[in-house]
């Protein structure tokens, strides 16, 4: 076994601790600047000075945010906690952390499949950062706008497209495999041969469809907002022409759609002797300028009618509308000469996207998850933008493309991402990793598991599920994690407890509590994870076996996991194990999951306190 040294980097919060004492308590040598075999470093890899990183290149190293794991309290308490934390990390370094498997150079080329404003914005952004871009459009020219686009903005952007954008006209993406740095894309114009791309933007042009209005209207009276020509409308000299604009009567429409309906209502109201009634369940005025438009409509004489969702009745063969007016408490009827219907932007989902074998189900690919805003999907390197995603037409789509492009550029050019190591001789070819990886990284090719070069986020889902211990992102394999747990727990005083803390929620909360001087229980081993997805039943049971009385897993709230279901997976494992604990003579709540956001420090502190209290009572 390599000789372990403690390499002390002074970080805020550690100033008063004596490195020599910590090293001694953890049973290690303190680094004195000589040759190193294996090391534990007291800070994270990113924050370590460049010279330190230089010295440690190629060695088994465990990086450790020591200050966070130590927390506050009297010096003796902190010293003991530091020893536990260092010892925990040393367990990992002692196993000779798997050296990172450096991926082949990620492909730099970018495929943009789609048309209209979103697609052009993506192509423009990717090209501006120097990526070779292929723009595969189903049309024969780039300046073709989607029905929901502003044609002027589209032709302006098309004219600005740099020369390095390679146009593939009349071409559609028909199949896609892989992830960031190594996508295989099949284009209809390329026959059977897939092309390799580093990243893919999917931005089909939008269509406008009428949604959320009532059934049974006389089609002869109806027309969509976009098909309206206000010039066609004028009332008689001696009376009025009534037009109804339905803008979300069955279900409220998004604000961009409501704004378009208001524009139509305003244009109609400015025609002679035309009385417009704008019917809706909610006035969705949140789009820029929406409230002003709403007032302009009213000033022009548009009658604003709020009807309860689904409360609009259709009568007389679809020629008459009736509703209970909530303001007057009586029924009102309107026989309009025309009915204008609000529209929403959508885009047809390509058929290959609905193949759950190749691609995650849509709700897992593009979940309504705050961490995947700005065009991101759960498949690293694949960006879905614009109408297909439901992004409002207009400037929001430009913002989205810019934000996505920066993430894309970083994934393809950033520091080398360690790929998961796959031990082919262990692999049972069960394809569990292919199915479980939330980010689409492992793929089965010919006879082995091949990982995309820039897609892995080290969530550890594959390592947790692989039945053969054959795959794990570097330093997240079972051997390192088990020995790390064992070393940490061995040094921790009774009652021993483990807090597994996800890097997106639990760990930031730990860090800010420690920075505030929070005193953690002496016997608590804090174990940072990239994602709760790494929790396996084996890991949970081993923690108990190694003497932990309680285990708490602090992961994201459902719906907020960057790896989509990492938290659900951990919760499910804990729930199913909890049923077995009684049979082992353990309390049924020995394993717990705490859903947490990074800002919920109070909640974390009180959950740990409760755990310590229960453990202390046993």
């Amino acid at each position, binding site marked *: 076994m390599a000789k372990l040294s403690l390499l002390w980097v002074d*970080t*805020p*919060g550690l100033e008063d601790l004596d490195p020599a004492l910590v090293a001694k308590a953890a049973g290690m040598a303190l680094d004195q600047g000589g040759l190193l075999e294996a090391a534990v470093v007291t800070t*994270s890899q*990113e*924050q370590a000075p460049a010279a330190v990183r230089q010295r440690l290149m190629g060695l088994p190293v465990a990086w450790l945010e020591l*200050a966070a794991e130590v927390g506050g309290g009297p010096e003796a308490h902190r010293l003991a906690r530091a020893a536990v934390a260092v010892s925990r990390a040393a367990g990992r370094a002692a196993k000779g952390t798997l050296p990172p498997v450096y991926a082949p150079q990620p492909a730099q080329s970018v495929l943009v499949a789609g048309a209209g404003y979103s697609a052009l914005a993506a192509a423009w952004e990717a090209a*501006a*950062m120097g990526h070779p871009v292929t723009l595969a459009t189903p049309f024969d020219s780039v300046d073709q706008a989607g029905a929901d686009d502003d044609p002027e903005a589209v032709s302006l952007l098309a004219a600005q497209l740099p020369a390095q954008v390679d146009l593939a006209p009349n071409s559609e993406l028909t199949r896609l495999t892989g992830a960031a740095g190594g996508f295989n894309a099949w284009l209809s114009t390329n026959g059977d041969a897939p092309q390799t791309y580093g990243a893919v933007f999917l931005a089909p042009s939008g269509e406008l469809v009428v949604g959320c209005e009532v059934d049974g209207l006389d089609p002869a009276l109806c027309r969509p907002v976009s098909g309206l020509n206000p010039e066609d409308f004028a009332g008689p000299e001696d009376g009025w022409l009534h037009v109804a604009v339905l803008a979300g009567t069955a279900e*409220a429409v*998004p*604000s961009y759609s409501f704004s378009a309906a208001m524009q139509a209502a305003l244009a109609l109201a400015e025609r002679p002797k035309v009385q417009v009634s704008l019917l809706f369940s*909610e*006035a*969705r*005025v*949140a789009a*820029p*300028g*929406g*409230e*002003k438009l709403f*007032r302009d409509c009213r000033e022009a004489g548009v009658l604003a009618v*709020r009807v309860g969702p689904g409360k609009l009745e259709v009568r007389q063969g679809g020629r008459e509308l009736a509703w209970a007016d*909530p*303001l*007057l*408490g009586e029924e009102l009827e309107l026989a309009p000469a025309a009915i204008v219907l609000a529209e929403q932007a959508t885009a047809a989902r390509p058929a290959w996207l609905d193949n759950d074998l190749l691609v995650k189900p849509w709700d897992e690919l593009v979940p*309504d*998850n*705050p*961490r995947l*805003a*700005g065009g991101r999907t759960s498949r690293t390197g694949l960006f879905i933008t614009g109408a297909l995603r*439901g992004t409002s037409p207009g400037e929001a789509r*430009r*913002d*989205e493309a*810019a*934000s996505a*492009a*920066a993430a894309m*550029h*970083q994934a393809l050019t*950033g520091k080398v991402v360690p790929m998961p190591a796959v031990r082919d001789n262990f692999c049972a070819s069960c394809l569990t990793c292919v199915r479980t990886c939330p980010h689409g990284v492992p793929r089965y090719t010919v006879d082995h598991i091949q990982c995309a070069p820039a897609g892995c986020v080290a969530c550890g889902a594959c390592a947790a599920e692989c039945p053969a211990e054959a795959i794990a992102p570097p330093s997240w394999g079972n051997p390192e994690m088990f020995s790390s747990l064992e070393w940490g727990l061995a040094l921790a005083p009774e009652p021993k407890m483990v807090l597994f803390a996800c890097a997106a*929620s639990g760990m*930031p909360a730990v*860090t*800010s509590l420690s*920075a505030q001087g929070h005193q953690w229980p002496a016997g608590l081993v804090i174990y940072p994870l990239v994602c709760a997805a790494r929790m396996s039943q084996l890991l949970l049971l081993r923690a108990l076996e190694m003497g932990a009385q309680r285990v708490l897993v602090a992961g994201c*709230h*459902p*719906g*907020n996991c960057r790896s989509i279901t990492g938290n659900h997976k951990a919760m499910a494992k804990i729930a199913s194990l909890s049923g077995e604990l009684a049979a082992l003579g353990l309390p049924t709540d020995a394993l717990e999951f705490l*859903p947490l*956001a*990074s*800002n*919920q420090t*109070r909640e974390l502190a009180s959950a740990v306190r409760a755990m310590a209290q229960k453990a202390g009572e046993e």
Partner: protein
Amino acid sequence: MTNAQLDTPVLILGGGVAGLAAAVDLARRGVAATLIEREPRLGGRASQFCCKATEACARCGACRLGELLAQAAQLPQITIYTAALAVAAQPQNDGWQVDLAPQPGGEIGPGAGRPLRERTTLNTQAVILAVGGGAFNPAGKTRFGHGRVQGVFSALELEAMLSQGALGPDGLAPAKVAFIQCVGSRDASLGRLWCSRVCCGYALRMGRVIRKLLPDSEVTFFHMDVQDYGRAWEDELPLMRHQMRFVRAMPGEVTAGDGGPQVTYALAGEQAQKEGFDLVVLSVGLGPPNGASALGELFGAAKDDDGFLTADGGPAGVFVAGAAAGPRSLNESIVHAGLAASAAAVRVASLTEARHG
């Protein structure tokens, strides 16, 4: 005394989510940036916000601040000064020369950012204004009793109370809570004829959190319209209508009653009524940045009709990100910063090319 000198490709003013996201996005593009924050600490408004998850994440975006702070701390291209204010700015051939003055406060702690300690002159090619929007001061609507009637709070105060645990089983436990919407928004009489976009969302989400913390409490939502917040929101809205009481009426006033604040409102067809609550929350909206005119003077930044900053029609090399450019949610501000970062990066690249080629 001569100032310390600093060269940076991009200067970002404001360390809220928009400023941090702009810095991170620039770093992702390989462009270095210096971010200055006027206050002693980073985070802007979101640092006061509570998590609004109940059974699941409510997608309020508040925890994305933690993510951005961690990223900013790790990316070597980003330099951050807190307690730093831009006090003078002159355009120069390739950008701007900006004088920074240290502000009181600011301690060295873990994480991103160090306080500015000395007057510094900074040369930069592009400036991103990410100074945030002003929250409406509820004192501007005296009839709602803020600061006068006990038990009336602004939503900003409620955010802080919830995140500190001051409201809930271990603190204040109101049985009846009212939210009054559109306070300082959709209001021509205040010259604020815009919808603030975020307040329906935060109010209903906080209402739901209160119902979860205090299951016996009753939450009433005085509003005109409920705005949209994405796909999942529309599915949740019918549920929320069961969890809370939706009253479609703007109250006339809030007065001090025996047991707490009283809200006067009128339902259609009914006599106006006074109803007592234990807690009344004013859902204040977002407006133009407080220092908009100062920034206008410093950088000649352009403003739109409502007073929000805009990059359109302003001087070259000045970009705007986040709520400073109009009401925006946290997530929208983060994505919006992406475009400002893109524009700044493109400018820096073209200036560098012009200089070398």
